[in-house]
């Protein structure tokens, strides 16, 4: 009897102590809940709703703005694909900055999901002789062409295979996403991706509150935290609502095409049918859903 009592008081003491410790570290119940949150794919709809409500609340407190965070699932009979006209692209990097704004990428440290490579016409597609840091007064530069690269949304993605915790996966509509609350930041996926499409939050991401895009998707452009990986999602928050990705809309020369592979009437199917396309590093068998072609 006595023993039992002392044990109970011991337990009580421990829990009191841990509460005190938590309070001391400024940890509240919400954060604790977030810490114990499970992998997004194992959650029920109800749990997802709760999490999203909490998130909207949290962002509101943090940025003093209204946010819509969606967890909209993939639609049936949709498989997205992208095509980019290499003969049109002028290397203006408008897509790069539209993407940064749309997808709430950190301004400092700087993260760009799209990298535009300047290549020498004489060498063809040759990464070893390409340059991402080109900076002339006017583009296009003589003797060069431009090849923008972002996530190729591979049909056989190597990044998802290697992730030790299943924090990144391919959705039924072909978009490869990351659960930022589940990623442990081991960066194995970055080593595995052949296209440099994955980016790491090396420091606390900074975005000015007034520049935040408030239209968000849980698996897409919601603000990320320090120490997790992020990548292009074809603007999942837009395309699942039937809009074009931001980069497609902003491109001044119309080099970017996007659509549903399963829809015979789509522009993407038209390009596959009538233009000759190529994919990058086909020898690696990643089978990209991102095609390059020469429109003229």
């Amino acid at each position, binding site marked *: 009897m006595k023993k039992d009592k002392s044990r109970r008081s011991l337990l009580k003491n421990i829990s009191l102590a841990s509460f005190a410790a938590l309070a001391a570290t400024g940890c509240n119940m919400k954060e604790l809940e977030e*810490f114990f949150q*499970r*992998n997004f*794919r*194992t959650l029920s709809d109800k749990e997802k709703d709760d999490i999203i409500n909490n998130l909207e609340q949290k962002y509101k407190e943090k940025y003093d703005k209204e946010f819509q965070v969606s967890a909209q699932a993939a639609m049936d009979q949709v498989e997205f694909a992208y095509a980019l006209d290499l003969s049109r692209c002028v290397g203006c990097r408008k897509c790069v900055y539209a993407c940064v704004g749309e997808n709430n990428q950190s301004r400092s*440290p700087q993260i760009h999901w799209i*990298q535009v*490579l300047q290549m020498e016409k004489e060498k063809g597609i*040759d*990464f*070893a*002789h*390409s*340059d*991402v840091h080109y900076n002339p007064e006017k583009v296009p530069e003589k003797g060069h062409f431009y090849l923008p*690269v972002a996530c190729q949304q591979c049909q056989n993605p*190597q990044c998802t*295979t*290697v*992730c*030790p*915790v*299943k*924090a990144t996966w391919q959705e039924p509509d072909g978009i490869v996403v990351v659960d930022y609350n*589940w*990623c*442990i*930041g*081991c*960066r*194995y996926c*970055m*080593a*595995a*991706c*052949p*296209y*440099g499409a*994955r*980016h*790491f*939050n*090396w*420091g*606390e991401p900074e975005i000015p509150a007034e520049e935040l895009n408030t239209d968000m998707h849980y698996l897409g452009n919601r603000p990320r935290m*320090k*120490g*997790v*990986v992020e990548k292009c999602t074809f603007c999942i928050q837009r395309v699942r609502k039937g809009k074009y990705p931001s980069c497609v809309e902003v491109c001044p020369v119309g080099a970017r095409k996007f659509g549903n592979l399963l829809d015979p009437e789509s522009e993407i199917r038209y390009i596959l049918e009538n233009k000759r396309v190529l994919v990058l590093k086909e020898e*690696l*068998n990643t089978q990209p859903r991102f095609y390059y072609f020469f429109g003229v």
Partner: protein
Amino acid sequence: MNFIRFINGSIKLILQGSKAYYAWLFFLVALALWGGFGYIDQLQDGLITTNMRDSVSWAFYIGNFTFLVGIAAAAIMLVIPAYIYDWKPIKEIVIFGELLAVCAVIMCIAFIVVDIGNPMRFWHMLPLVGTMNFPYSMLSWDFFFLLAYLIINLTVVTHLLYSIFHKKEYNKKVVQVIVLISIPMAVGIHTVTAFLYNALPARPFWNSALLAPRFLASAFCSGPAILLILFQILRKITKFEIKDKAIWTIAELMVYAMFIYLFFTIAELFKEFYSGTEHILYWKYLLFGIGDSKEIVPYSWSSIIMGFIAFVLFLIPKTRKNFVTLNIGAVLIYASVYVEKGIALIIPGFTPDVLGQIYVYTPSITEIRTAAMIFSLGFLLFTFLVKIAIAIVFENYNISDIIKKEKSVKSEMSTI
């Protein structure tokens, strides 16, 4: 009660020693503090305090991890020749080898913890509570192999020491079986770690079938080097009797390992340079630099030169059997493999990066300090464990003596 006695006694043990011992402890503690304060920066600001960036997303930490996996593996593989050549103090060799392996694995895990962005989410990797990506991710494999290896070695070495401490016979059969299991496991952890890199078609520098064999060969150069020196120290200060011949045999085996490593590397280089495909770029970056980016070249050549001198010193019987040159060789080969694993293996895998861009990486001061912290704490742990093990194995530190002493103290007290 006995356990508390053991802990008390051991604490006393590790706090006593010669001047040299205190100097060594002081050195390690100072280094750990210096390193620890560097690591605090990283904890606050994130991995931005390292020089890793998206292009070179793994670097010095994971290199250290790889090096230590090699140490952990080689420490146990040394048991094979001990059996084959029937060196007398086989039990002792097993004990010290396993202690080294245990410390090395703990340091490995520490390097992973400092390398990942969210160490608190470590539990996501576990089965049941997390979503482990087994068997697809080589990282889950590696994690489980390392854990199993740690548990096996810890079991054997605690069982051995515990039995001696209690003056009981240890269970020879079981120990022998477990040691025999741990040998292929040692090969296993290192192979799996090599596969971690090997399995990435995106990185041609690692995507070579020779990577795992080269790993093993180089581990067999560096791992025994520590034990070689440790055995000599033990021989001086304890009753540990290892013959000169056994030490020379270890050195001889290390020469074979170095030779095999050299051969594999030459085979690799021949293929790359003779076929002269694009993949040659990574080797070029490592050995000569590309354009103005030559920052990594001193690392690779210092590793090559140190390794080469060690090879020569170990190869010539005269210098191999001279303990001064032998020890110089051991230190050199250890350093050589350390630089090779820490820098030369990882960095060219990422430079040029997958899009052909060159980001010049060399470790930041935070990375160096964090590594210094882990190494000094690891060595501190190893020193303490070895100290206790020495007392148990050679100095008759055992439970009945402790109890006797306690009794005599008590009786003295009562007579007063």
